């Protein structure tokens, strides 16, 4: 199929074509299908349940990728601290009656606090 990666061609238009075909089209097609099928597909069909589970698992995989194999500045923070911050953030979110802001603050406190304390020791 040849090399069709984002950096494959030097032409200035190529990144935009890549973003449209690999980003816009495969995202908006589902939105449009959602509009057109509104009122026609049963929400509780098993096939739609499987679709929802795969879509959620894929976003979960993105979460794990961002935490376990990050690029850039997050990579400088130890992996155990990153994983611990996600777990602590989620547990605090649950304990605080499912309040997202509280969970985020707890996760950030661990993520930023532990490296600061370690470097001060």
């Amino acid at each position, binding site marked *: 199929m040849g090399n069709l990666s984002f950096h494959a061609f030097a032409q200035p238009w190529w990144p935009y074509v890549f973003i449209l075909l690999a980003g816009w089209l495969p995202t908006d097609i589902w*939105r449009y299908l959602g509009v057109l099928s509104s009122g026609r597909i049963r929400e509780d069909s098993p096939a739609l349940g499987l*679709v929802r589970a795969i*879509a*959620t698992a*894929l976003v979960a*995989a993105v979460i794990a990728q961002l935490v376990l194999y990050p690029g*850039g500045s997050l990579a400088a923070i130890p992996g155990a601290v990153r994983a611990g*911050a996600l777990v602590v953030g989620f547990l605090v979110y649950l304990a605080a009656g499912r309040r997202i802001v509280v969970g985020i603050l707890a996760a950030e406190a661990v993520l930023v606090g532990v490296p600061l304390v370690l470097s001060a020791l």
Partner: protein
Amino acid sequence: MTQTVSDADEAAADLPARHWALLGIKGIVSTPALILTTSFLGFAALARDAGVGLPETAFMTFVVWALPAKIILVGAITAGLSLPAAAIAVALSSLRLMPMVTALMPEIRGPRTPTRTLLFLSHFVAVTGWVFAMERVKNVPRRHRPLFFGCFAVTLTCLNTLLVALVYNLMGQLPALATGALAFLTPVYFLTSLFGTARELSGRLALLTGMLCLPLAHWLNPEFDLLIAGLAGGVMAHLAGRAIDRRKVA
């Protein structure tokens, strides 16, 4: 349900369209919108780290809009994936938008809204807009709902596109710990908001299986780890969720 809608209609029927348009725009300072906007600071840092330029990052923000899809797209660009493989990964993650849009349309549609208007508005649907609309649209008279949703969602998208463009260069000047902290907002926001909006057991299980499958998939094939973990984790969660539900019924 119909009763509350007609009550709201009666009380609010005299208010002009301008009122509902402004109320929609004001939604950008609601909690979910503010968390999303902060997460976009992290996205700007992520795209910059991945070597995606400023105009491309802003363009991507507007035309894709859903944050998980954009993060997968940036991941595919970093991994050097070919266009078809990147499109498949993005398509799988964006599948979730179809049932979301299907559920949202009856809520935001007016009495005589043409389909092309709904198609236009659907571009601005993602997790944040969906949660916001499902919560608040009940208090808006039906004929003003497309305007209310459009004013909120289009403003949110345009504002974040602008924000990404404005902060992109700043991200290179912040200390590494600060950009790291911003980039970390996204996984925590996704995890908690998806857990909160998951209606079924299999949805919550899929969050766990998808995360647990990733290290294994990464070890098997680092190029296609997201696809493998998403498919395997989704099938596992679906089967386990159905088995547990069946046992509860039996």
